Structure formats: C-alpha cells, structure tokens
C-alpha cells in the first residue's frame, strides 16, 4: 500500500520535473527535508500555494483598475517570482520574468495576457502540488508514528 503510494508520488514529482514545472531548487528543498524538518517541503509548498494565489489575485485586482499602477503590479510579480524561485516552480518563475517585462513596458494587454498564463500555470502546479501533499499524507498515515 505504502509502496504503491510512494511510487505514485515519485511518478508525480518526476513528471513535474519532466514537464519543466519544477527545477533543481525543488530538489534542494527535498534534500533539506530531514528529521530536523520532516515536513519542510510540504510546508513550503503549502505556503507557496496560498501565497501565490493571494499574489495572483492581487495582480488581477491591480490590472482591473482604470489607471494601472504598473510599478505596483511589478512588485507583486516580483514577489511571485521570488516565491516561485524559492520553491523551484520554474515555469511560473519564467512566466513572471516575462510578466515583468510587460510591466516595464506598461503594457496592460501584455500584463493581462501574461496574468492569464501565469494563473493557468500556477493553478496547474498547485493542483499537482496538492496531489503530492495528499499522497505524502497518505503515505505517512501508513506508517505508525515513531
């Protein structure tokens, strides 16, 4: 049971790497997770999922305003870039880089388009992350607590 779940988890994560959703920063996080920080990856991923969603909502709200404050948008995108970089969410991070260019050009259309893109990517990643976390929980549930 646990083994099957683990296989499933590994396949999921490997797939995420293969798709370019994740980069080696995520591996770094995995390496960091040990007995001293047993839930480190799931904590970071959860933070990322929550915070990313918040930021994306914020960006969307900013872009809805009649007079878009692109500096403001840019700082949000920058933040998203930071957290996606920290979690190893490569694809989201790369999209953020594009996004910032549109911010600098003050292109509302560009921003909106990229926002859609980044949103899609983010939610895709988030669902995978959530699946991953679920699997981890199930796996942990299989083992009696130490």
């Amino acid at each position, binding site marked *: 049971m646990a083994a099957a779940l683990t296989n499933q988890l590994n396949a999921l994560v490997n797939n995420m790497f293969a798709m370019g959703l994740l980069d080696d*920063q995520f591996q*770094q*996080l995995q390496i*960091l997770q040990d007995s*001293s*920080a047993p839930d*480190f990856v799931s*904590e*970071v991923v959860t*933070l*990322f999922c929550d*915070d990313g969603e918040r930021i994306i909502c914020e960006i969307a709200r900013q872009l809805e305003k009649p007079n878009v404050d692109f500096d403001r948008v840019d*700082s949000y995108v*920058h*933040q998203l*870039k*930071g*957290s996606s*970089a*920290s*979690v*190893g969410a490569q694809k989201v991070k790369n999209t953020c880089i594009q996004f910032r260019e549109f911010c600098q050009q003050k292109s509302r259309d560009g921003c909106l388009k990229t926002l859609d893109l980044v949103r899609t990517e983010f939610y895709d990643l988030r669902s995978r992350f959530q699946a991953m976390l679920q699997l981890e929980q199930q796996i942990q549930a299989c083992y009696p607590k130490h």
Partner: protein
Amino acid sequence: MRPEERKGVVARRRDQFPVGMRGLAVDDDPVCLKVLETLLLRCQYHVTTTNQAAIALKMLRENRDMFDLVISDVHMPDMDGFKLLELVGLEMDLPVIMLSVNGETKTVLKGITHGACDYLLKPVRIEELRNIWQHVIRRKFGNRDRGNIDIYEECNKPPNADSDHVHGHVSCVSPDQSGRPSKKRKEYCSEEEDEGEGNTQEIDDPSAPKKPRVVWSVELHRKFVAAVNQLGIDKAVPKRILELMNVEKLTRENVASHLQKYRLYLKRLSAVASQQVSIVAALGGRDPFLHMGAFEGLQGYQAFTSSSALSSFTSHGLLNSPRNNPASLGTQGVPASKSIQTVNGSHTLSHSISDANKYNISLPGSQHGNLGQGLATSLGQTQMQQKWIHEETDDLSTILSGNVLANGMSSTLQNVSPLLPQELVECTQAKIGTQPSVRTTSVNSEHLERPVGVSSSLLDSHVSQQSTVPLSGFSASGLLIHGSFNNSCPTKLGGTSSACAPARSSNDLMVARETKAGASSFGGTMLLPPDMEQKYLNFGGGNDFKQKLDERGADNLIFDWNSVASSQLPSNIGAHHSVSQRWNNSNSNRSNIGARMIGQTSSNASTVMPQMKTDLFISGDMLMPKNVSDLSIPKLQSELSSSSCSFDGLLNSIVKVEKDDVTFSDDLGCGDFYSLGACI
C-alpha cells in the same frame, strides 16, 4: 584563569563559532522566508525571522546585541530593504546581507553602496549561506584586534572540533577564507565601529580591570587636539586636557600618553616644517600643524579603529606613523606635498591620498582594479589643480572620520605607483634645486610616489643625462611595486585595521624596493633591484608572502608577518644594516655617498634607534609567550615603533642633509635604510 573566564563568556557563541551565529532573516515573502530559515538552521545558525522590515528594525534596536547578522530581502512592502540596510548601517554595526530575485547590476550595486556586505540571489543556496559567517568575522576584525583574533582562532578550530558536524564543510573552507577576505574588507566595516569596544573589553579581559583601553578615534583625537590648541601646546597638561575634553572613562594616563605621542609628532613635524616655513608662508600661511592634525586624525583613526588592543598603547604618534603605512603615508605625505607645492606648486602625494579617500567614499565596496583606474585619472587631474590639494587635505579629515581610510590608502598606493613616472618628470625639473627636505620626505614616505619623486629629483639634479634611463628604471620599479601591492598591499591595506601589520610590511618592502630601484637607476646598477627582490622574497618567505601574492587571506599574512617579526626582530636590525650596505655596494659610483648614508643612519639611529630596539624587544618578549594570533598586536606595536623611528630618522636625516649639503643620494640611502627598518 583569564583564558578560562574569557571562554566562559564567549564560549557558547564562539567556541564553535559559525555554529549558533545569530541571524535575523527578514523577508515579506513567506515562502522565501521559510526556505531561508530552514537553510540557515541547516547551517547551524541561530535564526530569527520576521516578515516585516519594521519589525526587524524594532528587534534590532531593542536587542542590538542579540544578532550577529541580518539577512534581508530587498523588496518589501513596508520598508525597502535598502532603507533597512541603511538604518541598520547607521544605527548598529551589523553585517547585512541583501537578498533578491533581482540580480540586475544596478540593484546589486545599490545594495553594495548602501553598505550590504553581500548580495545573494534567490533562490539562495545553502552553499552561499554556509559562508556568510565570514561577514561577521570581518566586521569584528574591523572592530577590534583582540576580538578578531579570538574569533580567528575559533575559526581555525572548527576543522578539528566540529568536523563531524554538518558544517564541517564550512570549517574546511573557513580557516583559509575567513582570514583573508575579512581583512580585505575589514576596513569597510571598521569605520562604523567604535561602540563595539565595550563588548570587546568585557569579553577580552573580563578579569583584568587593569587599564581600560582607549580608542583614540578621530572624534576623540579631535577633542584632544582642540583641547591642546585651547590650552596651547606648551601649557597643555594631561589633567587640563582631560577636563577640557570631558570624555567619560578617559583617564589622565590615557591623555598623558596620547599627549606624549602628540608632542613627539609635533616635534617631528616641526623639524620638517622649519625648513618649509618660508614656503608655507608663501602658500598662504597654512599651518602645517593643522594639516598634520588632520592627517594625524586619519592615522589615529586607522590605527585605533584597527584594534582596541593597539589603543592600549595609546601611543598616538608612534602608532600613527608606524602602525599603518597608509597612515604614515598620510602624515608624511602632507609635508611632502607642501614641499612639492612650494617647488612646483602642484600635485603629489597629498593629492593622491586625498583622492584615494574620496574615491573610497564614493565606492566603498568597489574593487581594487576599478579604484586603481579611478585614482589614476583623478590623480592626473589633481596634478592640474592646486586648490584641490588644499581642499582634499581638509576633506580628508572628514572623510577619514567618515570612513574607509584603509581602502583608500591601499588604492592610493596602487594607483600612485603608476602615476609617479609621469609626475616624476614634471616634478623632477621643478624639484631640481629644491630643498633636501622635500626629497627626504618623499624618500621617507613609504609610498611609491615619494620614492619616485625622490628619484626624479635625484635624476634631475644629479643625473640630468641619465634622467631618461633612471626614469624608466623608476617606472619599472614602480610597476613592480605596483604588482606586489596588488597582490599583497591592497588586501592588507584594505584589511587595514587589523591587517595593518601586513600592509605595512608590504608597503615597507615596496618602499625599500623602490628606493633601491631608484638607487640602482641612480647608480646605474641593476643589481640592487634583484637584491631587493630577494630581500623581499626573504621577508615574504618568512612571512608567507607568497600567500599574499595569491591574494590569500590577509589574516595569514598578518599572522605570518607577526611571527616573522617576532622571531626576526633582532635579526632584522642586522638585516637593515646589510641592506644598507648592499645599497652602498650597488652604488659603486656613489660609494662615498653610501658611506655617508650609513654614517647618517647610524647617527640617527643613535637617537631614534634606542626606542625602536626597546620597543621591538619588548614586543618580542610579549610575543613569544603568546599565541601567534596574539603576536599580531605586539607586533604592530613594534612595527609602529620601528616605523616611527624611521620617520624620525628621516626627519633627522633631512636636517643633517641640510647641514651637510648631502646630496639626494644620501637622502635616498636614509630612506632606504629607514624604510627597511620600518619593514622590520
């Protein structure tokens, strides 16, 4: 008992130094903060986190002793990371590492110019964080000598002590790296720290209520000078000065000692000044003392900032000149500049020095190469402007008080050497028929410039025909020196405060070389340079100069140097003599002159040397029982004393020169001799 107590105080934190280093992590991004925290914990640091810069600042203000290091994100909504950086830099002396996803050069540069000791890009790697403790050491090195050394020792320990730990990696790297870079940059950090003293004292000798150390900071020295001026130098007695200064914890003894040094200093100055009185008057009656004061401030600042231990000596004048080459340069540079001005009405050491300072200020964190270029250009300009000099000198004091003298000095040294050739040409002609004092000063001065100037003057006056050849020789020598500086000096000087010793040594060596080069060119013999080089190598060999060349840690150099000095102190004196003799030999043409030089040196030595020797021996004694690290301080003393001696000797020699009408060559000889002595 004392070591035990010390350990007791510091144990928790320093025994395994990088372990348990207290870092404050600030990032508004929870993901980054979480990752950062975990990474820091993994490095076995003690971590406090906050997601608001304002809170971070509050924490720092309330418990400034609770943190060793701050790591802050650049972009934060409540407060810009740069702002935090600035405030932390202003209010407390903590190394701040900036963190950002944004690696644009502009932003990074902004971080550095705002005082960040490092700028890391997200996502941060644990490898990068494993090294950040070095910034703490650096900062501490800047603050205090003793403390530094302690920490340095601690750092050296980890390999054995903590090798089993995760941070064993760190330890592998640390012993080497910790020392070097820390000294290099120490200067930057050193400026701000005057308050750190309190801690140091307590930590360093908790059991010893002996003499509280006094750091004669620029500020303190200014007060001192102001008090002395108010009283009049003749009527200034320690007690009254102390009253006028109104500084807490300063004792009459402190003041007395400082006054003594100051008087010596003034005496030396007056020797030079007397020769230049007319010139000075012509120049607008600038008071040489004032200038000296400013420079002294600089010197004092460097010397004192560099180490609290040094402060215990409180010997101001001595410390100044001997202590750091830069400082000594400053002092000597002033008179030299004046003389030059009189003669030529333009450029010189003072310019370069001032430039360097300015330059430093503008680019505290910049690299040597850049500095060198900048300086070169600026120097070229300076030559053109007389006013500059004045302004610069004036500015220097402020600048110095403000900051990174050491850096500036180092850069100056580097830059100066290349410039010299050009200046020489100009100077030479102007100088011909100049006063001996000018030359002497130049010779004496440990800077490349001065030697060059000297050489040039020599060439002009004496060897007009050879001028081209000698010049080339000089330039070459300058280049050589330059190279050596690049390798060793910049680092050292940069590292100045604690690294002073190494810097000095390198400088001295350099000087010696230059002088010799000059001599060789003068006499037409190429033998000397090689000799010098050998000498240099020897010294270096003893000291691990090679490591310096490798741009290794200033620490190593310092320690080595110290050790060498301690061991070789007696022998060094002998070495000086030999060197001087060599010089004589090389100058077959001028053998007579050489002899004269010797005579002079000896005579000078009679007056000055005694002090030197005593100091040296004392230092030697002190050194022997202690650890290598401890040695550095006494060493510094000895160096200081020696250098001061050299300075005195130079002055003396100048005077004598006047009397005897000895030629430039004589001066050079003296300069060499003394510089070598300084090398010791």
